[in-house]
């Protein structure tokens, strides 16, 4: 059973999102997603300053087997990326909600966050997929 923290929001495409004190949001991939992808060996992060729209492919995570797009759960501007993943992509496998975060963005519409899935709804979705 994968870990799905209750305080986070989720996109149907397996990204998680956390609201930060400074008004930005942190984004990564879920525990369920990292387990499905397997050992990650490369992460391509977006450029800082890039404007992304909702559901736009803006990062790539690659496991030994395959490359997968990561989609922006909400629209906004990329304000930080996790540089440590360049040398240690396995942090996403080991700690998907902590050291394995991928980027931070400043949402252009904060209300959009509320429309994402909560933990229970996301869990129901992955239960249905299995």
């Amino acid at each position, binding site marked *: 059973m994968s870990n799905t923290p209750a305080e986070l929001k989720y996109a149907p495409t397996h990204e998680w999102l956390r609201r930060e004190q400074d008004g930005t949001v942190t984004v990564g991939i879920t525990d369920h997603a990292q387990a499905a992808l*397997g*050992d990650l*060996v*490369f992460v*391509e992060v977006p450029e800082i300053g890039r404007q992304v729209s909702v559901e736009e492919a803006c990062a*790539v995570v*690659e496991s*030994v*087997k*395959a*490359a997968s797009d990561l989609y922006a759960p909400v629209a906004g501007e990329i304000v930080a990326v996790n540089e440590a993943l*360049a040398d240690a992509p396995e942090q996403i496998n080991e700690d998907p909600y902590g050291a394995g975060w991928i980027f931070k963005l400043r949402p252009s519409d904060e209300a959009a966050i509320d429309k994402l899935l909560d933990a229970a709804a996301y869990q129901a979705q992955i239960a249905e997929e299995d």
Partner: protein
Amino acid sequence: MLQRTPLFDAHLRAGARMVDFAGWEMPLHYGSQLEEHRRVREDCGMFDVSHMRAVDVSGEDGTRFLRYLLANDVARLDAPGRALYSCMLDESGGILDDLLVYRLQGERYRLIVNAATAEADIAWLQRQAAAYDAAVTPRDYALIAVQGPRAREVVLSMLEGDARGSAERLARFAAVEFGEFFVARTGYTGEDGFELMLPQAGAEPLWTRLREAGVAPCGLGARDTLRLEAGLNLYGQDMNRDTTPLEANLGWTVAWEPAERDFVGRAALERQREGGAPRRLIGVVLDAKGVLRPHQTVLVDGRPCGELTSGSFAPTLGQAIGFARVESGAEGEFEVDIRGRRLPLRVVKPPFVRQGRPNI
């Protein structure tokens, strides 16, 4: 409905993530593909490869038949127990399959063919055999590959008496039979080890004994990265019916001599050899960060000249490697296009890893 091997339940109990591979429900990994890869390079791992098919050829004309069917020459198998790698071609030189052929006692041979091509291979062999005194018999055995620097020691410790002595004396690329139990010193990982073929009922007890001896179960994921590091082609990816051995870096497996031996595809292959094959398969290394994948475009001096057929992160090397099929004349600065970014490729001669050590 997917087919299952006799070890299906054992895989589930071991926590395998199962995938559809050529119509078979097979283990991709049992938790970590990278760890399984490492175990094979450094210690000992095992693979259920029972989806691959054994096909026995027997009869008065067995040798003559296979000398005509295969591009390599079974006459080179000068003693029972010897094995040979060969392509089986169609009339135009296209590769129908790649296989291992073992010479057994008497005028008998055993072919081990790929799962995806097994049915077509058997039909092709049986059709061609009509003109010979040769019987083509598919066999339903279980096949377990035990591979790694400690593989021989572990397997030998489980054998007794004559079986142990014979297996211990096996040279590389040789095999021995004990009734329905077949031990071959072959594999698909670049490491030493054995491939064990046995009746299906014996598969799970053997698998369990190997596990108890500390052998790590490994999935098809690790099998793929191990074979790529070892510079071994994968049928359906690095070659298929639209490629000849000369375009798949397998010219060395074609026995041109003796010149009077005709084999299926020979005339077409000779024409290609004389005129020059239009494409070739090369080994490439990506020194920049990123992962090579099949079908990425390869460029030479900025111009597209082919594509990757295999590509992956190579766990032993910590960087990406692959095979690329490019125009034969392409010489210069090679690059790969990864999602619109062009990164330099270094051309190397496989294997990328030799006996567990980097070779690039």
